[in-house]
């Protein structure tokens, strides 16, 4: 297998007495969209800013694109794009100008018009940043991170505070990046976002990794009890089972034998959201 784009071994970070990150390991492969999921204060931003070279780690080993971010220089920065958790734009420059300014910082930038298209701001190309909605500003922020045509893009909680429409538009942009073959490291506290965008999800809580996997098999949902709901004589019935197929067979068999149906039949498994809440709640209970 090719060398991972990001490799972290035993990463630690303390701020004075407080340990924000307590020895985590993870790897991100080229071309994948990796979601780093966790509640506020879990250590996501600390980790991502160590990967971006903004913060120094207290311990452990970190390699990003083959270099230690703490020591990496200009050449390394040509290959990465960063969208910070909070960052406003120059209110007096237009979308095109902001991108043009950043294009000049890179040796081989993408075309400004191409990036405007990519982040869906064609209609707003000549508008100043101060005239953009929150979602549009964030997409311009992503555009500025993409203008250098990076191999690796960091997005730190990019959709916090978005309305559902803006969030969906943003997700479309990120889906487009996957098609371009970019590696994306995304932090978020929205389960749905991780589920929608990521190839792999790692959950961090209180500075430790509590779960990792694909959005489908995360938290081993397959083996967790499923719940069967139906109504009988107007009464709501709930059956929890770990042997779903057998239980369903019995229920439906019995119902058919009596010539009836199972009104309002529904089967639910714990959602990724449920798994996430349970995992992070128990990790924070340790605190």
């Amino acid at each position, binding site marked *: 297998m090719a060398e991972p784009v990001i490799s972290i071994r035993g990463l630690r970070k303390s701020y004075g007495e407080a340990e924000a990150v307590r020895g985590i390991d993870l790897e991100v492969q080229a071309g994948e969209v990796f979601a780093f999921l966790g509640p506020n204060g879990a250590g996501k931003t600390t980790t991502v800013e160590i990967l971006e070279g903004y913060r120094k780690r207290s311990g452990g080993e970190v390699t990003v694109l083959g270099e230690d971010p703490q020591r990496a220089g200009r050449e390394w920065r040509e290959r*990465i794009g960063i969208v*910070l958790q*909070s960052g406003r*734009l*120059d209110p007096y420059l237009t979308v095109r100008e902001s991108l043009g300014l950043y294009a000049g910082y*890179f040796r081989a930038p993408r075309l400004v018009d191409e990036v405007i298209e990519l982040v869906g701001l064609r209609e707003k190309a000549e508008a100043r940043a101060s005239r953009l909605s929150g979602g549009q500003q964030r997409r311009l922020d992503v555009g500025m991170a993409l203008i250098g045509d990076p191999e690796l893009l960091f997005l730190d909680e990019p959709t916090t505070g978005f309305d559902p429409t803006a969030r969906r538009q943003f997700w479309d942009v990120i889906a487009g990046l996957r098609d371009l073959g970019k590696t994306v490291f995304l932090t978020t506290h929205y389960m749905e976002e991780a589920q929608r965008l990521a190839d792999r999800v790692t959950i961090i809580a209180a500075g430790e990794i509590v779960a990792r996997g694909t959005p489908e098999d995360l938290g081993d949902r397959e083996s967790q009890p499923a719940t069967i709901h139906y109504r009988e004589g107007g009464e709501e019935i709930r059956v929890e089972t770990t042997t779903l197929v057998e239980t369903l067979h019995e229920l439906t068999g019995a119902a058919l034998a009596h010539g009836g149906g199972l009104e309002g039949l529904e089967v639910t498994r714990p959602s990724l959201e449920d798994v996430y809440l349970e995992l992070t709640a128990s990790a924070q209970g340790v605190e």
Partner: protein
Amino acid sequence: MNGLALVGHQFRYDQKAFWRNPASVFFTVMFPVVLLLIFATVFGSQTVDVRGGIKTTTYYVPAIITLSVISATMQSLAMSLVIAREDGRLKRSRGTPMPPWVFIAGRIGNSIVVALMMLALLAAIGRVLYGVEIPWDRLPAIVVTLVIGAAAFCCLGIALTAAIPSQDAAAPIVNALLLPLYFLSGVFIPDDQLPSGVIHFADVFPIRHFFEAFFDAYVPANGAASASISWDNLAIVAIWGVVGLLLAVKFFRWSPRNG
């Protein structure tokens, strides 16, 4: 792009943003013009007892140019850099391959160009409205004095950002430092009316020395035709600038204070 071309690139965008920002245009460009008009109108008929007696307007033109240079450099840089820092814009730019000195050089270039434009604008207003001669033969001395002063006040402005915790604090802190010194240094009140103790106090700070150097360059001393650069005053301004530069290198922050 090589370093110098990149500075030019950064400068072009800084210029755009500067002229579109109503606050920077008002405080850096309009405010000195308004001050000159007010002082000239209110005190225009009087004389100032320096250089054996000169017209008040002849005094105020170089005085207000001095103020406008400090405003375009120290004041404008301190405020705009703090705003950019707290917005997270400085941090974002540090995530790119652009070397940090390029960004700073672009901003300093922007300030010095605006300062030179203010020199031209205020000198022209002084000439047209009040008949204050533009000393063309002394132009090299004027420009050298202005550029050395502007560079020093840029360094002081960048250093000052380290003492400004938030966007809201920027204007009060900058004005609390500069406004009293304008009064005490003879920029607002002609120095023949200031007690010598006040002048001695003001002599500790760079504004007074920059004003004296600029005044010497702009207003010919009695009968002296030769262009003169007031090196002793400029040396003190430059020392302040170097101190500012060292403090800036040590304490300047790219990341927001609140984050």
